[in-house]
């Protein structure tokens, strides 16, 4: 396990038992993806850029729709 994936493994092991060797390739891939997004964020994200969670929730429909009334 590389040093940069160890913190992820420790976090996971707080919640669930996992085989370190088995999960290592996924943690590596996850780390690579997260690092890529982090670098992209440093270069391109404005401080005012809101996460999608701000606009996704209002996209969900009301409990009942007009044609059901």
């Amino acid at each position, binding site marked *: 396990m590389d040093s940069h994936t160890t913190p992820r493994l420790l976090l996971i092991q707080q919640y669930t038992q996992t085989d370190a060797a088995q999960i290592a390739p996924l943690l590596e891939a996850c780390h690579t993806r*997260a690092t890529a997004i982090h670098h992209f964020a440093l270069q391109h994200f404005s401080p005012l850029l809101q996460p999608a969670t701000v606009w996704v929730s209002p996209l969900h429909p009301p409990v009942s729709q007009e044609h059901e009334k």
Partner: protein
Amino acid sequence: MSTLLRFSIDETARRLRAGEFSVPELLEACLAREAQTRELNAYNAIWAEQARALAAASQTQLEHGYDAGPLHGIPVAVKANIAVAGEEMHAGSRILAGNIAQQDARVVKRLKQAGAILIGTTNMHEFAWGGTTNNPHYGASANAWDRRRIPAGSSGGSGVAAAVRSALATLGTDTGGSIRLPASMNGVTGLRPGVGRIATDGVFPLAASLDTVGPLAPWASDCARVYSALTGEKAVAIPASLRGLRVGLLGAYSETVHPDVAQAYQAFTHWLSDAGARCENVALSGLEEAVNALVLINLAEPAALHSRWLQERPQDYGDDVRLLLQTGLGISAVEYLQAQRYRTLLREQVLAAFRELDVILVPTLPFTAPLKGQELVDIGGQQESVLTGNMRFNAIASLCALPALSFPAGFDRDGLPVGLQLIGPDGSEGRLLALAARFQQESDYHTRTPLMVAR
């Protein structure tokens, strides 16, 4: 091939009303087709006796002048993560085995109100987290066109059932491509609606900010009928002309694909141009990060949902899904939120592009159905992982919460279906379906049937 199963839902509905065959006869043809294709493992459950009783009642209703509409008497199947009252809803898992749904999902309620006959649940990747439908608890599904190959996933059973016509339409769910992928690999049409367009209550979630539910069927008009039943929206008329239609292409991003996919893509753009549409390249910056953002969100959100089961019952998951869910537990809040901020940036760009465009065209996949167990695909000498390839084009609509439609647009040199994808702005589901229906008036890719059911 049973002649009853050769027709679109509209044509089937017309023939039912003309008395050419009855609802029970149609149902029996579907049940026989399911039995004929059982080795593909498209279904987890078949409710033959209930369906027969409903078919008899449905026929009586038609004969007495009660007509619920185009889906009246039409056999449909739903993915195993969609609740049907009184039936097991296990979402492809051992964790939820024996879980009997107390009430119908809203989509099921609407299908029933529209007169559709539910015949069973379709096999899926465990908890919808995967693209192969290789399910350790309920068996692997096989591709309708070549049983050595994957049917894609996670709605693999829905794609296979629609392709072999053991149901005239199916429902699937799509988070990162789970309707569009099996639609493409099995040669049918599949609609991922915009997020929130169709209520997902009663559908077991994967990643709530991305999840959608939608139809799969050979004809775009079939999907339009189901979509109308699910939403109450009227179907959009098929355009007589494409003159003035503005189609966005993603240039080089769409070009690193298998040559047979490229050929189908080019043929379709020529068809669009010949029909009067204007195709132009659109630049979306940072698109190369789309898969990274989608994967991070699709790791983190399901991990939160499954955290209790991961702690108490990790042994009850299949290895692949357990490891993915556990990986999600190791993502930080900041990493998750940066991926969600990327979505906002991408959606702003795509919505800006839609001020000048009506649709964006991309392949659904860079390749056709891989062999079971295959992890890498060769594209022009470059190795691409099946996981990343699955998401490359599907990530765009998923991240932007926009509607997208995969439709059959050709076959590769091995006789495997090729799908292309139309992405539209918010609320454009009907227009995407109408555009694909227009193409299907002049093409026959969607009507071809796998050899095993053609003989």
